[in-house]
């Protein structure tokens, strides 16, 4: 005779807001006198021991993952949102047209896009696609909104740096037209002038290059660790 009877729950039907609802009534706990409670109490403690004991005897139930040790085999899920990147084709060209849909969709202004009219193509071209990693909440709305499939979230997650300013950088590797505009330019010499290579820390970005509380300004790309 247990104080708690798992099958003691009673099923019944009740009227709630004009609907009949199937409810399950909680079993009540009852006292059955001092001696019974003492022996029942002992039994319930032993029951608990019986449940937990196998966990101590066998190692097959260990679920802990040893993180730094398992780095070699650790694989994140393909949809895991950890770092915003440009999708690039085989020649390293992105498909961002600089339409600013992601900039508008971003809830906290983590994306800043600079565009300019291309001298050869005459179209809007991305000069810099600045992503503020330090402010991003990984809501995925930029990827979701992008009409040209230019963005994706990558699963790599070890991004710790010693200087917050290093988390503000350009996603594009060149300032120039998106992939499909390249093929329309036929002149070989003109093609060479289409793009200017840029590094992640080129140009002025928010936070970068300014001094922050007690921390002197650093040149772009200069690591915080050294």
């Amino acid at each position, binding site marked *: 005779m247990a104080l708690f009877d798992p099958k003691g729950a009673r099923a019944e039907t009740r009227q709630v807001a004009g609907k009949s609802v*199937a*409810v399950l009534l*909680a079993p*009540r706990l009852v006292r059955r006198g001092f001696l019974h409670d003492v022996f029942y109490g002992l039994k319930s403690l032993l029951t608990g021991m019986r*449940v937990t004991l196998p966990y101590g005897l066998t190692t097959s139930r260990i679920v802990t993952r040893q993180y730094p040790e398992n780095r070699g085999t650790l694989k994140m899920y393909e949809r*895991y949102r950890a770092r915003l990147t440009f999708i690039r084709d085989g020649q390293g060209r992105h498909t961002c047209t600089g339409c600013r849909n992601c900039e508008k969709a971003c809830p906290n202004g983590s994306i800043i896009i600079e565009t300019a009219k291309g001298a050869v193509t005459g179209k809007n071209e991305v000069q810099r696609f600045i992503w503020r990693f330090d402010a991003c909440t990984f*809501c995925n*709305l930029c990827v979701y909104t992008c009409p040209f499939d230019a963005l994706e979230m990558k699963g790599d997650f070890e991004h710790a740096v010693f200087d917050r300013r290093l988390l503000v950088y350009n996603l594009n590797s060149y300032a120039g037209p998106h992939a499909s505009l390249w093929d329309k330019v036929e002149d070989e010499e003109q093609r060479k002038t289409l793009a200017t290579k840029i590094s992640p820390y080129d140009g002025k970005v928010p936070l970068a290059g300014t001094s922050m509380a007690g921390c002197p300004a650093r040149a772009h790309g200069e690591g915080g660790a050294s």
Partner: protein
Amino acid sequence: MTVQAYTLDDLVKRLDPQATEGASQQYFLNLGPQHPAAHGVLRVMLFLDGETVVRAIPVLGYIHRGIEKMGESLSTRQFIHLTDRLDYLSALMNNWAVARTVEKAAGIEVSPRAEWIRTIMAELQRLQSHLLWLGVLGMDLGAFTPFLWGFRDREELTYIFEETIGARLTMNYVLPGGVMSDIHPEFAARVKKYVAYIRPKIAEYEALLSGNVILEERLRNIGRLSAEDAVSIGATGPVLRASGVALDLRKASPYGAYDKLEFQVPVGTVGDSWDRYWVRFEEMRQSIAMIEQLLGGIPEGPHMSVKPAVKVKLPEGVHYGQLETARGILGVFIAAAGGSDVPYRIHLRSPTFNNLWSVTRLAPGWRIADLVAILTTLDLVIPDIER
């Protein structure tokens, strides 16, 4: 209970006007805002007589982030990612509450597949939330094993979310018109595997906790909340149902795919801590049963009916929508000026705020250790109390 006090001195004078130094055992004690037994920055001012609580007054303001104010400058689609940060253990259901209100206001049709995905995700998360609560309950009452087990079983569900959604906690998955991405091809198989895994584990929890004499002594008859009190405070969810009121929006006004599901509403009889414990425990089983039913038939169709480029404009007027999260009824009130997707005012009726105030009725007469049991069976998530 209303206490009008502007300073701590005010409060002391009001509650104990006759107190003379040394003659009384009555004194004030702050539980929190940083306390190992409180889940987050909850501060409860306790007016004690010896070790017995005379009055308990929750003091808010430690994690106010102005989310409702932020909502006045964001479109509803952008606002949804902030609702992840209310009750982070039912993030998907918070997303859904806002999305549902916007859909109702703008007259957006949602495909059966999207509703199916939302429902199964909500039930998975309800199970996940209750697993964490069960672990923390064990921890608060002095058992360390349930804490580790709760997190172990919760982790497996987190992987399921991670695979389909790409995030573990702040998911931002449900948008007006559907869900952000279709389910992963592996999703159904993984959930099926998880259901087979969790069933014996639930039986294990039951053997370890439900019949345990220490847990019984800590919960039985502690903190009885009558149905009248629960309703007058505005408590919802398991707290209200444990007091004997069978109000569950999944039954009372079905949304999503709940009208196609068969399940029972666990209800308590006297509203003590044991009833609140049992109601949540049984809800886990009901959630598993619902998940199994949902796996039976996945409707085909699109997962989203609104194109990302379309602005979801809200018609002029006030709109209200609500649904049942793991903690109770989350209501979303939107006042719109019309012609824009940015609301004029957005207000959230969060379940934990009302549930918290039942502590003013529950705590008097109990010891501090019992208060910990009462607080843990209320299942408080502090960021949900103040937005």
